[in-house]
């Protein structure tokens, strides 16, 4: 793979990571007054899939949509403004963290109802086809989406009506603290998709390069054959389901998993590869990081300042943040 592509992937992942780490850090100030679902640990999926996509391809997401918004190239300042409840936010202060929207880059929003955006993505694909474009529709979902009947109806509809849609089954193996195996009697989503007439493939969702290299030809194929395709990206969420905390321990996720998956976390892996393959890799990475961190800083400071200005007028008291253990 070209170094440029690898660096782009890295930069996108690092942007996602940095933004989310910053959200974590700022959350205690209680001025991001909404539920946030972080993708820390899962960045390779958004970055890999969306770098392979074209700007004209249309994307829909779930409650966990920060990474997809940023991966699609959504405006960072508008996203952070949205998290700070500002009118200048990407959803004008109506959507919040779970409903990020940026028409300019064809990020068409998300649903916080699990499975809700899947059939909508099929409809987007149908519209793109009807309009005679060769764009495709990209539907991000979690493994929780695989519990919902709507997903199977959507697979069938997409195959039956020959809709250009890429289903991205982002399998972090949990819905909140319930593992996939406690919710699904059979775990092979590729087999399921195939039984409905949709081809698919499973990839290491923590390997951005593999995700990207799988998506590129798959997307070409979708465009040319006007047929849906499914990619399962196996990954792991390093933070809590919701909020900045953690949900490991008795009755929740086992600590051992955290250790195991931390060692496979996608940024470190790609960084090693870049450094390993390129003599100046480390320098390139540092430069990319510095650039991103500066941008993130500027954006947050701006949003925070304007939040304070607005709230000086409105005067809302900082509420208690919610019970971190539940959605």
């Amino acid at each position, binding site marked *: 793979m070209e170094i440029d592509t690898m660096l782009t992937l890295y930069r996108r992942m690092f942007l996602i990571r940095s933004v989310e780490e910053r959200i974590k850090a700022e959350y205690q100030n209680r001025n991001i007054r909404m539920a946030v679902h972080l993708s820390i640990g899962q960045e390779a999926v958004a970055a890999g899939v969306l770098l392979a996509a074209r700007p004209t391809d249309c994307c829909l997401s779930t409650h966990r949509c920060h990474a997809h918004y940023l991966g699609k190239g959504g405006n960072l300042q508008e996203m952070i403004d949205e998290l700070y409840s500002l009118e200048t936010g990407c959803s004008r202060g109506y959507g919040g963290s779970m409903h990020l929207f940026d028409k300019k880059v064809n990020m068409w*929003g998300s649903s916080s109802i699990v499975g809700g955006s899947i*059939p909508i993505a099929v409809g987007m694909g*149908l519209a793109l086809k009807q309009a005679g474009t060769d764009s495709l529709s990209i539907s991000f979902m979690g493994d929780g989406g695989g519990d919902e009947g*709507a997903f199977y109806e959507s697979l069938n509809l997409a195959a039956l009506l020959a809709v250009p849609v890429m289903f991205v089954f982002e399998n972090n193996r949990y819905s909140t603290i319930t593992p996939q195996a406690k919710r699904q009697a059979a775990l092979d989503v590729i087999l399921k998709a195939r039984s409905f007439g949709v081809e698919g493939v499973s990839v290491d969702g923590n390997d951005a390069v593999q995700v990207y290299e799988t998506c590129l030809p798959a997307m070409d194929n979708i465009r040319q054959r006007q047929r849906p395709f499914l990619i399962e990206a196996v990954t792991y969420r390093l933070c809590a389901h919701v909020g900045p905390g953690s949900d490991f321990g008795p009755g929740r996720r086992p600590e051992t998993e955290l250790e195991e998956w931390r060692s496979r976390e996608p940024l470190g892996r790609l960084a090693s590869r870049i450094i390993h393959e390129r003599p100046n890799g480390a320098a390139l990475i540092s430069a990319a990081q510095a650039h991103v961190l500066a941008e993130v800083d500027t954006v947050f400071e701006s949003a925070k300042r304007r939040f304070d200005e607005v709230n000086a007028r409105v005067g809302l008291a900082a509420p208690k943040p919610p019970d971190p253990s539940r959605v």
Partner: protein
Amino acid sequence: MEEHITSKRMSFGEAIRMAISQAMESDERVFAYGQGINDPGGFFGSTVGLSDKFSEVRCFDVPLSEDSLIGMGVGAAIQGRRPIYVALRFDFLLLMMNQIVNHAAKWPLMSGYQSTVPLTIRCIIGKDWGQAAQHSGAYHAMFAHVPGLEVVMPSSVNDAPRLLLASIQSDLPTIFVESKPLYELTGEVELPIEPSPLGQASIVREGDDITFVAISHMVEFAKGVAQDLAEKNIQAKILDLRTLSPLDEKQIITSVNRTGRVAVFDVGWQKFGLASEVSRLICMTPACRLISPLVSVGQKWEHSPGGCFREHEHYPIQQQVVTEILRLF
């Protein structure tokens, strides 16, 4: 091409089909889909020939996957298409609630009003050959309770295509509720069909003694009652609401203010229904006083039974309503 207004006598089903056909002709973004939509019977004639005329790309049959079919419509609508889903029974919309209420109705707000959802869902209500509890329900009040949705309920062959065209052209998701008894009617329809603005009631009959607020096929029922009352020298003004959401609050209040008496003719249940909403308008309007209690006509507080004898007791009976209203005077 020069267009001049003509008019044509047609059935309710033909009028609906005409509106869809005209919408599809003038706007390539319009498409229709539904289970069995291309059956030669074509939803009581309302979809006959559309796929021949516009191809199966724009009028197509679909699986029994109601929830996702509406989701698909939402997605296409968000991308600028104007889908019309034909759902047959209103009861089937209960399978679609997640997509209608959680998605279609909310997507514009969730996007900061940067996105529209021009989706139309046609469905049919009404007592019809023992269809029983799961095939004859009327749930318009549930949808009228939800912001971001429009609920349209025509009562006549002339209005239906006009209102349907307005629904298709609207940028909001619209529930277009037809009624089985209306499919028995024929009427004169002006061509080409012009959209009729949503949210405007029409006066079907003038009268000073009592206001009848009616919707859908209950407008015909109200006419029958009004005629009986006229024989006793009581003149009812009949307002055909035509749309439940938006609701023509002004005309309702103006008329009730004048007559001081009101009867509501609904096709559904009264609790948390149209009679309730009309009452709210009355109670919230300063100096709007009723001379006599409001009369509420609709389904008995029960699901509709399958057997004809039980069914007969379930729906309102003209003579009983006349008697009830006469008691007010």
